[in-house]
């Protein structure tokens, strides 16, 4: 009846019980709050069933916040364990629990924080910057979000019921095979990543088509904002890379559920195949989360320098070259697997080539400031910190890309320091810059600048204290994923890294507080439609934008169209309001997401009747949705005029 699910799955150690209790209490509090405010209907009508990309974008950010809290708690636990678990002391986590924690940390941060940020921002910004009223496939977009959320919540469920994977965020076989990990942990990992991955593919298709087909009149390829170029490249990467992930996970699933031997060492299988496949997805994934950050900085720097982006054409080509190269570098993740020097050299050099377009981007950003007027608002501070961190992380990346150096530092904490420099110093700082920059557009008020600045310094300092020592630890021979070590001299360095995490924690707390503080004081922080003296189309419409974004679809004839208008250039715009067709809300995405969560849970625990039922449910929902006729509503020209006149700000 319950497959492999038994009472034991609910028994955990204290730390985990605390987390589960916190989660349940949080959920109860949330439900109570919504009931108290009587907002269930509103929640259902305005949010859960919505197909408006602006709202879906905000929901992505909300899920990211929840997942980030979990991933961050994992990081804190790891650092605390490593502070004390030296010599005769074995810390407060068992080896198995520690391994669950770092696997969950990596999975959460990449799949549910970074990917959520990427698609969240694309939902918010892409339609506005290309002058579109909507995305190409609104329902597909909503479905992508709900599948993403379902995957994320499945990892949260694994906290309360059973165990999570112990095999790291990429679950290399044979460790992740049946022989060594027969339990539910790997299955939780497979299904949460699989469900979210399908969601990502769908969202990728939606945004690619949106950018290809829905740009406003006059916005030709070389007049698109660079953020749109970065989103375009990202979605191309998503579309070509995520199917590899889906297929790889499917093969691993067959190994684990039907006893096949794709990746087991016995029976003719080959684990090295898995490692190649997973990185054939994994390296493009690195750029899937990195390119949007490049895009954000390409918007932030010109705005706060009051100057167009330097070398636009170069920037476009740099993005395209990175996109192409990112497919042919995957082997650099395992130079130490014993490939011939010829193979290693090929992948080393393709990797190094990526440094060229990346360097070009850095110089173009710097020279955007040249003869500009640089304003030190907090998005610009994030950029400053990004340049400093990213060049160091880039340099260590080049070191890692040379196979002989990699033989020494591979899988050491040096590697961890490198990719956290990219992920925090690059992706996260980029996201924070974008978040602060675009926040007023979607809320109508600013985040409190003073609190932003405090949070920034905590993050920057905390990052340096937390990750610079890891380079040193790598040189000292410390490998990643150690729940215990025997070298006493490492301890002080680990403690320093933990202090850094504490400082970052203070920074993140200030940000969270700042968010609520700004909401509370929103009347004092009103921003109007164009608070930063913006350059692109999103700043030409009210904040927050109306449902249809643009009452009059803009016509553009150059890069930075709003800036052109401000300088008295730019083409004649249409004047007449018109009827606007918008897609109707639908609960189908939410239902499919919810049923997918049930499906993932059922199949993880081998509750086959429920899994089959859920699968049929998903198909049924799809059929019902796809056979529906009335999917568009109409907003009349008079109503548009009324809304526009009300929103004079």
């Amino acid at each position, binding site marked *: 009846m319950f497959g492999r699910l038994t009472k034991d799955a609910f028994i955990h150690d204290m730390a985990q019980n605390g987390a589960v209790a916190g989660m349940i209490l949080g959920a109860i509090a949330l439900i109570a709050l919504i009931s108290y405010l009587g907002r269930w209907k509103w929640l259902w009508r305005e949010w859960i069933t919505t197909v408006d990309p602006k709202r879906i974008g905000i929901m992505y950010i909300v899920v990211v916040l929840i997942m980030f809290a979990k991933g961050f708690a994992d990081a804190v636990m790891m650092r605390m364990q490593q502070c004390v678990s030296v010599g005769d002391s074995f810390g407060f986590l068992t*080896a198995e629990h520690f*391994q669950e924690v770092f696997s969950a940390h990596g999975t959460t941060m990449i799949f549910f924080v970074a990917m959520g940020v990427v698609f969240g921002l694309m939902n918010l910004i892409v339609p506005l910057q290309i002058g579109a009223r909507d995305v190409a496939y609104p329902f597909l977009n909503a479905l992508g979000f709900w599948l993403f959320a379902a995957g994320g919540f499945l990892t949260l469920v694994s906290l309360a019921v059973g165990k999570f994977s112990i095999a*790291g965020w990429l679950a290399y*076989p*044979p460790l992740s095979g049946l022989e060594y*990990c027969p339990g539910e942990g790997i299955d939780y990992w497979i299904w949460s990543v699989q469900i979210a991955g399908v969601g990502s593919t769908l969202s990728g298709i939606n945004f690619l088509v949106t950018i290809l087909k829905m740009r406003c009149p006059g916005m030709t390829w070389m007049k698109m904002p660079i953020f749109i170029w970065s989103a375009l490249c990202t979605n191309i990467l998503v579309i070509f890379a995520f199917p590899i992930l889906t297929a790889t996970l499917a093969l691993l699933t067959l190994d684990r559920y039907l006893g096949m*031997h794709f990746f087991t*060492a016995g029976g*003719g299988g080959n684990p090295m195949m898995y490692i190649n496949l997973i990185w054939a997805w994994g390296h493009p994934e690195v750029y899937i989360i990195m390119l949007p950050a490049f895009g954000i900085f390409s918007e932030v720097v010109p705005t706060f320098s009051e100057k167009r982006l330097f*070398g636009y*054409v170069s920037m476009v080509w740099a993005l395209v070259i990175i996109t192409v190269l990112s497919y042919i570098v995957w082997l650099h993740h395992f130079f*130490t697997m*014993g490939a011939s*020097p010829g193979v290693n050299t090929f992948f*080393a*050099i393709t990797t190094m080539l990526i440094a*060229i377009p990346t*360097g*070009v981007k850095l*110089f173009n950003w*710097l020279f955007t*400031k040249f*003869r*500009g*007027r*640089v*304003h*030190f608002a907090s998005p610009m501070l994030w950029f*400053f910190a990004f*340049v400093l961190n990213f*060049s160091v992380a880039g340099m260590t990346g*080049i070191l890692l890309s*040379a*196979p*002989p*150096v990699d*033989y*020494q530092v591979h*899988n050491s904490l040096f590697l961890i320091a490198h990719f956290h420099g990219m992920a925090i110093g690059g992706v996260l700082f980029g996201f924070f810059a974008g978040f602060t920059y675009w926040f007023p557009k979607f809320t109508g008020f600013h985040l409190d*600048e003073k609190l932003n*600045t405090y949070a920034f310094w905590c993050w920057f*300092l905390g990052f*340096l204290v937390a990750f*610079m020592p890891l380079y*040193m630890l*790598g*040189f*000292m*021979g410390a*490998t*990643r994923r*150690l*729940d*215990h*070590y025997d*070298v006493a*001299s490492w301890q002080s*360095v680990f403690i320093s890294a933990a202090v850094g995490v504490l400082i970052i924690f203070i920074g993140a707390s200030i940000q969270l507080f700042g968010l609520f503080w700004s909401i509370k004081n929103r009347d004092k922080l009103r*921003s109007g439609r164009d608070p*930063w003296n913006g350059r692109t189309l999103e700043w030409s419409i009210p904040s927050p934008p109306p449902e249809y974004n643009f009452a009059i679809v803009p016509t553009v004839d150059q890069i930075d169209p709003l800036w052109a208008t401000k300088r008295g250039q730019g083409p004649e715009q249409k004047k007449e309001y018109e009827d606007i067709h918008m897609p109707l809300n639908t609960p189908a995405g939410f239902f499919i997401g919810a049923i997918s969560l049930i499906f993932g849970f059922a199949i993880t625990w081998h509750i086959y009747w429920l899994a089959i039922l859920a699968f049929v449910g998903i198909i049924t929902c799809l059929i019902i949705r796809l056979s529906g006729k009335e999917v568009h509503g109409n907003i009349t020209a008079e109503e548009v005029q009324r809304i526009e006149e009300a929103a004079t700000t």
Partner: protein
Amino acid sequence: MKMSKHPLFYFLLFALLIIIFVLIMQPLSILHFGKSIVMLFPGGEVALKERNLLFIIQALMLIVIVPVYVLTFIFSWIYNANNPKGNYDPDLVDNVTAEYIWWGVPLVMTGIIAALTWHYTYEMDPFKPLPSDKKPLTIQVVALQWKWLFIYPEEKIATVNFIQIPKDRPIHFEITADAPMNSFWIPSLGSQIYAMPKMKTELFLIADQEGDFRGCSANISGEGFSGMTFTTRASTDEAYNKWIETAQKAKNGFTLAEYNKLVAPSSYNPVAIYRLEDPTLFHYVLMKYMEPS
């Protein structure tokens, strides 16, 4: 929106942090930890070459990084919105010469680093024997759950979590696993390489000084992963030969039966030394996964 009026404060803070972390903390920590930063003070030729390559590439990279840092500060300073002396020219958005420079310089730098890497990747190929007039000592390595088994096929001994090697003589490691994938790594001596079931990887290392070097697994392999450390003792030929002789007289013989006992998962294994009675063991482990059971 009020924008900050005091970029100077920010600059000083940024500069201070960088100076503290790069120019003060790093040298201080190198002084403080000294030889325990094994990668900077290698114990063998392979590790030494790898460290030197790291230094060379780092130095070349700094040629690009330092200007980026300097320009970041200078431009933000001169062209900050409150500085009346900064020229403002919003139409300066392209310059072909400038762009040739920053496509060109990284291209050249990458070319140099790529050429160096090409050369050294062939030279430092882990499978390639080291140039030496001494015959390499072969040690067969089997990663188990969660300990290292070492077999000296010619000396007819086997050890767990400990090896002794003569200094200045190349060591030829033949590596496989009867466990999830591991990575065999002795940081003081250089290069790591994966230990995988069904596969045989090879690694040539050499120690040019005496000492105890820490070895470990660098790839997560399950519960006892953190405890998969072993000691590599590099000693003089005499001490090494003496150790071999003692080991050959060890009480316990190492046979297939003994191996099968050892395969059972266990963490933090103590050092063990055996006489080797079955010299085909390594081959047996390799073949174990070749055919369906």
